[in-house]
């Protein structure tokens, strides 16, 4: 039976080693990997959809730390230096736009008179004295080949909607990402008359006085046109198209901000889908506008961001904040998105512009 008993020193040595190992592990466990008071800097945020044909407008903001007692109020970052570079062209320096139309914007909008072009790569670099340097790159794709849009009034889930059958042709050789959205652009209605080949505004007192004097002159009458105010109202969309990626975001009976398609199932072919635009805000006598139905071809990064943004907005209010999935973009050392798009649109007027 001697083989049953291990030498005493062996047993003792095993015990000693075991306790030493336990001690080491316990000490190692005391290291804190995570804590709730971990320090993190605020970050610059770019929220830009750069669209072919539009003038340069880049909304740039900053994050706010949220914790117990933090005030949620967004601050502008007008002290940032913003440089935009178009591929094979010199860089442009953008300046903050202090126009009243951006006064309520939660970001600083940096503008320039240049216009974005299709099929072009743009790089942005922002240098901020305290928030550091952030960079991002975006490609504006080619215009989508919009073939046709047919509209008719309809009902969708007991709502009055404008049904729009949209047909476009996909490119065979490119992976394309499509977004459909509808906005009502706020407009100012300008009233004017032409007198002696010169345009006079009827919206000013001086113009009204002149009109009173010359109104009996043959050929003189009050005309009107509109000017976009660069302010928009979101119009909810519905779809029953299972090919849309919205089918994986929420029930198709629910409203969406944007409708998403990838060209996997119709690569190189014509594709027709129907979107239903909620008519609730088509007509507003207090703030007149025009409805813009847009088919956009967007870059991959913008597409992914917008899709996650859609999911975020759908979930917001339906799930606790700790379960919300924040959209992630392409901004190095910052947050948000710098993405390109090219759009074709149809404009409809429902307000009486008198």
């Amino acid at each position, binding site marked *: 039976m001697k083989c049953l008993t291990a030498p005493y020193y062996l047993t003792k040595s095993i015990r000693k080693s075991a306790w030493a190992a*336990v001690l080491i592990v316990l000490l190692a466990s005391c290291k804190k990997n995570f804590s709730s008071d*971990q320090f993190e800097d605020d970050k610059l945020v770019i929220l830009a959809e750069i669209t072919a044909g539009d003038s340069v407008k880049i909304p740039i903001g900053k994050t706010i730390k949220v914790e117990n007692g933090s005030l949620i109020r967004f601050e502008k970052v007008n002290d940032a230096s913003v440089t935009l570079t178009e591929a094979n062209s010199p860089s442009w320096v953008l300046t903050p736009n202090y126009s009243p139309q951006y006064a309520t914007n939660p970001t600083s909008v940096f503008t320039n008179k240049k216009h974005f072009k299709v099929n072009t790569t743009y790089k942005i670099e922002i240098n901020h004295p305290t928030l550091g340097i952030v960079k991002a790159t975006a490609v504006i794709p080619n215009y989508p080949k919009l073939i046709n849009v047919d509209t008719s009034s309809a009902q969708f889930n007991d709502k009055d909607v404008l049904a729009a059958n949209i047909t476009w042709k996909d490119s065979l050789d490119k992976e394309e990402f499509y977004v459909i959205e509808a906005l009502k652009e706020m407009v100012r209605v300008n009233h004017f008359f032409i007198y002696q080949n010169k345009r006079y505004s009827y919206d000013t007192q001086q113009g009204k006085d002149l009109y009173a004097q010359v109104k009996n002159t043959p050929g003189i009458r009050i005309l009107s046109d509109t000017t976009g105010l660069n302010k928009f109202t979101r119009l909810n969309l519905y779809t029953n198209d299972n090919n849309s990626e919205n089918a994986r975001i929420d029930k198709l009976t629910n409203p969406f901000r944007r409708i998403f398609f990838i060209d996997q199932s119709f690569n190189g072919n014509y594709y027709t889908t129907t979107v239903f635009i909620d008519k609730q805000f088509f007509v507003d006598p207090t703030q007149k506008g025009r409805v813009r139905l847009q088919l956009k071809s967007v870059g991959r990064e913008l597409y992914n961001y917008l899709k996650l943004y859609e999911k975020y907005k759908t979930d917001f209010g*339906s799930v606790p904040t*700790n379960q919300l999935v924040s*959209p992630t973009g392409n901004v190095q050392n910052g947050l948000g998105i710098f993405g390109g798009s090219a759009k074709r649109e149809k404009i409809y007027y429902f307000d009486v512009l008198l």
Partner: protein
Amino acid sequence: MMKYYCILVFLLFSVELTWAQKVNLFSRSYTPSFQKGSVAAFLDDINQRGPAIIEYTSNYIDTGRIITLTGSPTTLGTVLQQVLQEQKINVVEKNNKLILTPSPTPLPDDFFVTSYSVYGIIKEAVSGEPLAEANIFNPAKQNGSLSNDHGYYTLLLPQGKSILYISYAGYNTQRIELDIKGSTRADIYLTPKSDIEEVTVTSSTYKTTEKEDNKAAKETNSNNIVLGESDVLRSFYMDPGVKNIPEITNGMLVRGGSPDENVFLLDGNTIFNPTHLLGTLSIVNKTSVKSTQLYKSNFPARYGGGLSSVIDVMTKDGNMQEWHGEANAGLLAGSFTVEGPVKKDRSSVMVSFRQSWIDPILRMLNSGIGVNFYDLHVKFTQWIGKKDKLMFNAYAGHDKLLLRQNYSNNQQQWGNKAMSLAWNRLLGPRAFVNTSINISNYDNLAGFRYNLYDSTGHLTQNKVYNTYSSIRHYNARTTLEISASNAVKIDVGGKASYTRIHPFDSNVGEDFIDKPGDFSAFPPLSFHEVVLFYENEIRPDKQFFFRPGIHVSHYWYNDYQYTSWQPRLYSVYKIDQHNQVDMSYNHMTQYLHLVTNPYMGINSDAWVPSTAELNPEESDMINLGYTYRDSKKLLVTADVYYKQLKNVTNYAEGQNLFLNTADWGQSVQLGKGWTYGLETKAERITDKWYLHMSYTLSWNWRKFDGINNGAKFPFKYDRRHELNVAATWKYNKHWNFSAFWMFATGDVYSLPNQVYPDFDDAQQISDPLAPREYRLIYHSSVTNRYRTLPYHRLDVSASYNSQLSKKINSRLTGGVYNIYGSPSQYVYDLEGTLGKRSLVVTTKYQFFQVTPYISYTVTF
């Protein structure tokens, strides 16, 4: 590598069978024609008249030695034992020949002794209930055996007289004398001790080297009573490495795995959600249970399908002698178990039923909680002849739970239904087979309401997410146990299964949905699995034990097929009487993925099968253990382990709801995980005291490409420290007092730490339907960066046992659950609107706060 391991295991199998045949050759009948003669003369006689040919050369055998036979040997073995005594030879058997080859040492004394099997069923004398893991010990040879789950045992004994001791905790040790002339069936009946608390450890017990720390405690202490309901599985929560997470489905987490990685078997049949009250109480009614085992570090090859643990619950056959029962009335529920013979010694029936009745009290207290559950278990056992036994099992259970509290407004219903028919057969002295066919069904319906208010407190949104899923599993399995010798046991078997998942659906509306029929049906997801397993238990001497095994499974779902080779190894080295070390390695594969909507406080589980994109989950684990036992009944264990997980699931980013069955695979993403830790336990059981302390130190990591920028992050239940302390004091034969206290580090969670302007707002797009104050985007820069407050709870209880009459005993138990009202779950949320200050809101979930209870149990 795994295939080579399998080849090695099968080689072992071949060697064992050869060895087993040798024994048969020696037992053949042969009587020499003379009693005295030379070695050569005896060998020649065997060659001419005997049952085998012996080949040898006289170079290394003293053939001239004169042998006089003693006794009257009648087999080849007993003759050769005397003829070849002290000869330095080895014996090789080939084609019915015995070849004698030279050897530096003589043959062992008992080399040619013929051994026969003694086998049978060990049962309780009073009820005829088979006893699992009863101990059979042969002191003369210092060897022994244990009965299996069905009471079957077998032990090889030398021809002639032998004495055996048969013991079982709580029963009188029985001594039997046998005169072995051939394989003998001996069914053994043990009688319970008059005072079952007395545990006598004598030298007449066969001391196994395997760990015994994975059995559920049979005693009722405060740690395994929930509001007056005894729950045998709760004693597992005392074990290090096993975490109890109440208020989630199947709230058991083992060694860093998620709840779906535990396989729960009720009489061999899979139960998908074995809990009531969202994990607070198991579905197993204590009075119907015969044995319960939890495997978390060394998995026998017969088990598979779960990465983290296997809980194997065997229920009683039912009393074959007379009718008995037990009734229990507690705060939470009432239950009874009745068992008795349909035909004495031939067939029995056991019925166990439990129904909750706390709901009216909760309503009266305006608690906002509604609880309603039941479980029913019926078992019928029939012996057919002396060798065959049939067992029919049926189980049904259902839960309905309502939560209407501050921040939660949930409704949940789930239930299991299971049925099985098992057949046991004693194939002979050394083989036992258990075959069963099983059906198991699980349904889960859950609804979750989340309201959104604007800054004036006006309700702006009311959404109820309703989900429904169900799963049905059919399988047929068989296990053959063969005892090649006292030192070698073989388990071999297979299983074929078919699983059909009725997929998830979700319905978003304004109210809860009660009926499964109101959900849209989607095409079912079905898969098949075929399993073969083989395992050895080898005890080469009294110090070593090792158990190599292999579990091979083949899976197919539509066109996707996968074969998994899962080696298992468990080995123990006994250093001395007090100290032993062990090592195990396990590879496990799991084909079912459980995906859970990441909403708090809701049991919204959905199962999905493995596919070409969603590969099976796999784990590799290595465990090193140390055990110390002393003569003062102190047990100390320590284990270190490292476990790697592959293809664990999480919802893909931005895909936290299943809405489209065709694309469900895209909603789930695969990642990897790893967990490691130290688990220690100290336990002392005396006549007066039961003392227990366990401590776990563990780390638990996950890594998914699409989460946390691909960086590792701690798993939700990454609890660094966990401590359980329990004590029971037996004051006298009537009174005992228990206390249980647990402490655990808090869980990790994510919360937004930054907020930035809304994208549409930045584009000058306003949404008249969305409140302006919520136009912001929350951002969480690191996953699971925060940790909740620690959890701790104290329960106390006292029991009074009395004998009401000769056959009726009673137990009155009173106690307080969660004596200082500690929460069992913390949920953190962030409230914030534009222009106001953000606020972190902490919700403390607790089904039962400070809850006194009383229960009364009568056994008859």
